[in-house]
């Protein structure tokens, strides 16, 4: 378990420029991330790897953010989710989102705000209350 010292974030975003920017931003904050262009790609990553946080767009081809979260909940348990979207939150909730552990961030966002939310979510995940087979508390931080 000592290999998992750095938090690992799954970024799902269809706009390539935004996807790259998010990767750069997380890297600059010392957070490892894997980026996926759509829900299918993200699901395939989730099948082989574990993530401490999912940052996902709402409107994407193949599978939208809400559907993706439903799928990922099966594979990743109670992993925290940050949903970033230029659509209003109320529109996204119409999709019938079970919002336990989901936080919304409106696009465009302040990088500082996003990083604060990412850190808070990672800290929350690290406390291990909702991760069935998560890493031991204290290893991530």
């Amino acid at each position, binding site marked *: 378990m000592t290999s998992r010292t750095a938090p690992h974030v799954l970024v799902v975003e269809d706009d390539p420029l935004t996807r790259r920017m998010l990767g750069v*931003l997380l890297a*600059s*904050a010392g957070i490892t991330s894997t980026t996926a262009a759509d829900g299918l790609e993200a699901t395939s990553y989730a099948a082989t790897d574990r993530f401490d946080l999912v940052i996902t767009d709402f*409107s994407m081809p193949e599978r939208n953010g809400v559907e993706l979260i439903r799928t990922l909940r099966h594979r990743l348990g109670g992993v925290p989710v940050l949903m970033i979207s230029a659509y209003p939150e109320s529109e996204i*909730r119409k999709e019938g989102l079970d919002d336990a552990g989901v936080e919304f961030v409106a696009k*465009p*966002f302040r*990088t500082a705000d996003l990083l604060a939310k990412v850190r808070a979510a990672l800290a929350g995940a690290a406390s291990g209350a909702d991760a069935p087979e998560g890493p031991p508390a204290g290893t991530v931080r």
Partner: protein
Amino acid sequence: MTGGGARLPGETPAVPGLTGRHASGILAKTVQTGAEFLRSLAVPYTYDPRRNTYVLFGLLWGLPIPVFSIGLDCWLTNGASSGNLLAEGCRAVLDRPLHLFFLAHPFLFATIFGALGTMRHDRDRAIGHLIVELEDRIRELDAANEKLKELDRLKSNFLANVSHELRTPLVSMMGYAEMLLDGRLGPVADAQREAVATVLHNAEKQHRLISDLLNFTRFEAQPRLDVRPFALREVALRTAESFRPLLAEKGVTLGVPPDTCDGRVLGDVERIEQVLSNLVSNSLKFTPAGGRIGIAWEPGKGRAVRVSVWDEGRGVAPEERARLFDRFYTSQSPSSSRMGGIGLGLSIVRDILAAHGSAVDVQSRPQGGTVVSFELPQANGELPPGLARLRDGPAIPAAAGPAAVAESAGTGGSVPPASGTPKPVRPETAGGRA
């Protein structure tokens, strides 16, 4: 007397239905019915089959009159019948021509009933036409309504998509600009920093304009409110925080009352934040460097809290005041033509506050500048009817409120419980450049 007379003082009001107005109405109706009756008389008997039943009915109705009169005559003349009633009757008629008058009665009744039948038939037909027309109209309206709903759906979709497409490029623009400014992508020279700051600043401005436009159209389409109690202070501080960079750049300070008073009110916290933000943004346009802007609140009329945004700008000319909140109106003075804006900010303010049942008041300050104020119900006060209706409507579900709403609506957390009437407080400066 049918004329609508002027009532004498002390005269008791006339019984409803017998007033002059009513009487003239009844007269007009009578004349109209009479004319209709005469018109019906002129129509040939074969006008319609229904009328024939009326004619028959009239004949039967009138028949007893000659039968009775002639029968009585025969009985009085002869005492007992000879057996041939018809012959006796004919003789009676020939003896007394007056019987012809009675004999005419069945035909007279037939004519009158026939005419009444025609009238009834005409009216039924007219009503039938009206019903058919009404049904046509209903169908037309239904179709138009469906079309409008479809258009509304298309418009909503279009707005959501436009909003998404316009904002998406800004995400990476603003993200990279912020990262550059934060030094996350390596050291930045001062000249470069200035350039990137300008990029970021203008991207933010673009974002605000897009949001203004979209909020306006969205609110206009569905003016729904998510009404909950919230603390004005929190909203004011959030507003001040969001304006911090702009305030610093312009050298203007924004005052928010100190934390002795929360200003607990009822309203849609998100919309009210938008109101404050638009008002501050407007004040900022007209306040010169070194000037001050303030957000303040104090007890208003009844159980209301009066919220105001004041500034030390150039003030509003009285003739401009009326148009200030008009859609797409922008100040015409040459000095403000550089101020930017698309003339929606204040009209959004007016619409949101109107939905909250409040009007916007614009006053000039004696010491220069402007105060824009409005009232919101206290958190423990009663909802104005308009607000209650909007709240009870098919509003956004409670869970849909943003996190900020949930925080301020809860009894715990950082928000102390309502402390009765808020006291007016002197603003202190918050935000802005030191």
